[in-house]
């Protein structure tokens, strides 16, 4: 028979002024299993806790009901106290008679009656409580950062500076991401490369950071503190251990293909560095385009290389490593506007550039060495039209969301054109101008002062006429159709998640939102975490944002990772699902319901009569299970139950109410 102790708190007068503690004590003493009942002014205070401790030893209590404030307030306090007395901390129930009784009711008799009900429910529930034991899991003190853009770089540097090992994984042959492609950054007009390349160099040289370029995540298993990740190292065909990055091989390669980094505005050889400031500053061979690897005759680069780094026999390899935490920082890409906007020529007109193509054009290290010229004839434009919200805020053709950064870089593009080519006419078609950021509104104002003409309305059609691009649209402030003959058009296109995000998130068990961005654990309070323990997120993989926000989120994610890796082991909550294998039929309904991939089917040896058989049963991974209990309500046979909130415990509460 259980020996329950009931302790009623007055909370000064917060409870006692409405609820009569004597009534509770009297009622408690009548309840089966209650060995002792007492009240005190402040149960949570030191003397209050001492009183409980003394009663435990004096009356041999083995489970405690405290009628007091919300368990959200002092559950941990009282659990700690129980732990010190040697009673299992989970042999505790709290009847919430303050927030949900004395504070919300006026009638003293009725409130006391309700308090008695709540206390009785807790006493009934605790009669079915059982000791629970937290498991500790070791933590691998190493973090994996997926994506080597500015978000991944910042997160990796912050974690590494705190003294933990980091693997920074990048799909391309160099870190840098989109920020490395930009020319200047708004609103301060800092040169993007000048502020990002030192950080790229830092990650390449940091003793705690292992840079893995040309790599992709292939498999993920395990859970918080203990992930095992399979990483595919794509063949580089160049031995990076001995290559010095002299660049001789690139000079004589006979192949010329469109440069990804310059977005098709220039060409590159088949053995190439992504861009001159690449980190690591070593080339790889593009096997799709290499003459020799496609089966032809060549081998010039191998002959040229003074160190013999080129190895045409190189193959993809899989490397497996263990990590305690993972940061997703996979970033964004721009939408493929030609496939969405046939009315803008669908990519037929050379002089229509995307915002990122314009960044390359205006960049001193870009294909035109920073001269703003038309790709078609190399002439400087006299009239430029900038179209905002191409693919953004357009639920019919593109994305319903706002891509956040475009208003500002459209202003920056206008500013750059007016600065480099004074006298150019710049028209910006917009829906709204959104400038929420430090110094942003001022920058926008300055751009208008510089002479950019803002036209409110969408561009409905762009077509070519006498070597110029005619942009037809509406000026919705004038209520008139307008048409501008432009020499160059810049489309500020929407951001969307990087390709492969669906595969990556499903490997990690992380959720995505309706637009495929990675879902944060809580939109306000946990913006840098996914709902999977130990998996964090940084930057535009979560949604469109500008560089300051990306860096801030990356540091936030890093802080979370550091907090986790600083522990040598972590306690998992014991209030998780448990399987009664005898009852489990192995139907697997729970497997699909679990949002954390914590339930899997496990083959076990069993007997059927005298016969030995093998059958499948549900198995809960205590590292992954978060204790939501979704599987328990879905279980057809009642084999799954939630520890701490067992079916029988909740049913006892229901029964106690309906006497």
């Amino acid at each position, binding site marked *: 028979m259980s020996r329950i102790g009931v302790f009623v708190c007055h909370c000064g007068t917060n409870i006692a002024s409405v609820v009569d503690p004597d009534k509770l004590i009297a009622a408690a003493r009548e309840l089966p299993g209650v060995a002792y009942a007492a009240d005190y002014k402040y149960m949570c205070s030191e003397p209050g806790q001492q009183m409980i401790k003394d009663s435990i030893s004096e009356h041999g209590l083995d489970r405690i009901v405290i009628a007091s404030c*919300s368990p959200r307030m002092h559950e941990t306090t009282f659990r700690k106290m129980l732990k010190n007395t040697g009673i299992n901390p989970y042999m505790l129930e709290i009847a919430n008679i303050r*927030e*949900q009784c004395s504070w919300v009711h006026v009638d003293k008799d009725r*409130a006391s009656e309700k308090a008695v009900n709540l206390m009785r429910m807790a006493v009934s529930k605790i009669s079915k409580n059982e000791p629970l034991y937290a498991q500790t899991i070791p933590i691998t003190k190493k973090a994996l950062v997926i994506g080597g853009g500015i978000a991944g770089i910042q997160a990796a540097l912050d974690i590494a500076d705190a003294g933990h090992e980091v693997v920074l994984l990048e799909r391309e042959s160099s870190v840098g991401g989109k920020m490395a492609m930009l020319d200047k950054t708004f609103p301060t007009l800092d040169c993007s490369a000048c502020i990002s390349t030192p950080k790229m160099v830092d990650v390449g040289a940091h003793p705690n950071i292992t840079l893995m370029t040309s790599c992709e995540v292939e498999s993920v298993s395990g859970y918080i503190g203990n992930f095992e990740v399979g990483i595919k190292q794509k063949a580089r065909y160049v031995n990076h251990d001995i290559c010095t990055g002299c660049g001789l091989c690139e000079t004589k390669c006979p192949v010329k293909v469109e440069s990804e980094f310059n977005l098709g505005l220039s060409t590159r050889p088949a053995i190439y560095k992504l861009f001159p400031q690449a980190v690591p500053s070593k080339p790889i061979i593009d096997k799709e385009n290499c003459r020799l690897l496609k089966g032809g005759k060549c081998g010039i680069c191998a002959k040229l290389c003074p160190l013999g780094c080129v190895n045409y026999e190189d193959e993809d390899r899989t490397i497996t490593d263990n990590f305690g935490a993972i940061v997703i920082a996979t970033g964004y890409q721009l939408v493929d506007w030609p496939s969405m906007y046939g009315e803008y020529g669908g990519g037929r007109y050379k002089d229509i550039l995307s915002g990122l193509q314009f960044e390359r054009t205006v960049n001193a290290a870009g294909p035109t060495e920073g001269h703003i010229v038309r790709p078609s004839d190399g002439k400087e434009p006299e009239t430029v039209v900038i179209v905002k919200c191409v693919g953004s805020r357009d639920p019919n053709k593109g994305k319903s969301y706002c891509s956040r950064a475009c208003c500002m870089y459209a202003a920056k593009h206008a500013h750059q054109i007016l600065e480099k080519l004074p006298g150019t006419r710049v028209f910006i078609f917009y829906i709204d101008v959104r400038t929420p950021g430090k110094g942003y509104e001022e920058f926008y104002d300055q751009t208008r002062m510089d002479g950019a003409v803002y036209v409110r309305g969408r561009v409905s059609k762009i077509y070519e006429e006498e070597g110029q691009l005619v942009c037809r649209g509406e000026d919705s402030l004038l209520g008139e159709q307008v048409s501008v003959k432009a020499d160059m058009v810049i489309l500020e296109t929407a951001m969307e998640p990087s390709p492969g995000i669906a595969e990556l998130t499903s490997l990690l068990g992380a959720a995505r939102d309706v637009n495929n961005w990675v879902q944060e654990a809580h939109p306000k309070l946990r913006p840098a975490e996914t709902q999977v323990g130990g998996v964090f997120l940084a930057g535009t993989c979560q949604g469109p944002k500008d560089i300051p926000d990306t860096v801030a989120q990356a540091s936030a994610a890093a802080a979370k990772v550091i907090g986790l890796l600083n522990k040598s082991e972590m306690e998992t909550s014991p209030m998780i699902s448990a399987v009664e294998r005898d009852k489990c039929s192995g139907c697997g309904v729970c497997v699909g319901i679990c*949002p954390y991939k914590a339930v899997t089917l496990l083959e076990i040896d069993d007997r059927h009569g005298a016969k030995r058989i093998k059958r499948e049963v549900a198995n809960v991974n205590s590292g992954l299970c978060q204790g939501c*209990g979704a599987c328990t*309500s879905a279980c057809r046979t009642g084999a799954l139950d939630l520890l701490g909130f067992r079916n029988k415990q909740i049913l006892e509460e*229901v029964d106690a109410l309906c006497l």
Partner: protein
Amino acid sequence: MPVEKSFEPAIVAFCCNWCTYTGADLAGLNRMKYPENVHVIRVPCSGRVNPQFILRAFQKGCDGVMVCGCHPGDCHYSTGNYFTRRRFMIMKRLLEYNGIDPERFHARWISGSEAAKFRDTAAEVSEHVKKLGPNVKYREEFRITESAEAGT
């Protein structure tokens, strides 16, 4: 059975720990007032609420049952309340089939900041159930069974 004038329904509210339970606590913090007959049972997630709990409540003579959780899309456990939503749409029909007025059962989404919504919901459900009168469906049957057993 005539409804007594002093009838006070017994209502059980299954509230998820992260949203509605917090909202109910906040109602207390703001000293909002609602009827005494709403009793909260804390569960980790509305998805934890097994239909069996609700049936048991009605079987034992509970007059009304509320299941409250985070708003769809805001679940602490990401998807739990979607299961709740689907499960309890069917639940209403099961109750109807069993002869229990489905109006006695309410599933609501109340976030941790919506203290006023919790208060209003508690008052509204309490008032609504009061009008429906005591739930005697299974209680009567219990009595009959008991008396039948006593007779034999």
